[in-house]
């Protein structure tokens, strides 16, 4: 086994053996084969997936039908032409989580 590099983090005496034993016991408890579990749940997952796909289809069809209807008011026009942000939401979320956005703002200021 590869020797671990020196680390400032110590562990209690006999910790790794004890942890190994605990893991082994947990693995024995959870020995239900994953394939059997999958089969049991596959039917319900398929039904749920079919339901959501159907629902999404209906929503998209309704939206397209709405968009095709000509606008009679300014608020309707605004709704149909909402400005899109150049930065995708997930990227903004990443930045916020990292504190990067905060850092960038601080640097800009």
């Amino acid at each position, binding site marked *: 086994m590869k020797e671990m590099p020196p680390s400032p*983090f110590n562990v209690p005496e006999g910790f790794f053996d004890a942890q190994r034993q605990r893991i082994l016991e947990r693995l024995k408890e959870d020995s239900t084969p994953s394939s059997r579990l999958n089969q049991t749940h596959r039917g319900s997952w398929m039904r749920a997936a079919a339901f959501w796909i159907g629902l999404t289809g209906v929503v998209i069809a309704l939206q397209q039908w709405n968009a095709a209807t000509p606008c009679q008011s300014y608020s309707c026009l605004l709704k149909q032409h909402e400005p899109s942000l150049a930065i995708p939401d997930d990227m903004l979320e990443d930045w916020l989580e990292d504190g990067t956005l905060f850092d960038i703002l601080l640097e800009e200021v």
Partner: protein
Amino acid sequence: MMSKKIIPDHNAFEQPDWLDGMTDSNPHIRSQSFEGFMNAWQKPIYFYMRRLLMNHQDADDASQEVIIQVFKSIDSFQKKSTFSTWLITIAYRKAMDAMRKRKTHAWTSLDATNQAALSHLNEDALFDADEAERRLHSAIANLPPRQRQVFILRYFDELSFREIAAISGKTEGALKASFHHAVKKVRATVVLPR
């Protein structure tokens, strides 16, 4: 200079000998593979978690979760990447979950949060380091979760940004930015006299 790496070096094209035995129908072979896996990875996973979470109990829980997850989902490992990349990806996600769970937004000064982390390390009987190392680890403890992960994988384990991108699912550019910000914060804490 002694190495500070925890994650073992791996050959990009090589899978460990015991890997196939993990899914073998023979319990004796599975048991041998378990030993092989634990000998190779139990300590690296624990110390990876310990560096991220600082606390022994949290690292114990998180590393146990990673190992259980590996054995539960080994059937889904398709060998498109190395085993170590797949394993570290699981560890990365578990660590993210653990860090997010106990995330505390300290809207106090950086000095105050660093002092809090430093006093926590000083009180930890299982942490044995000199002043510089204490400062380094307290600075790391104050980084946001992703910056902390990137900093540890890059600085301590010397993984390339490409490898970290494969593990984290983030772009190399985003990771470089995170690392840059992390280094700046760590440097500010370690270099400046208190």
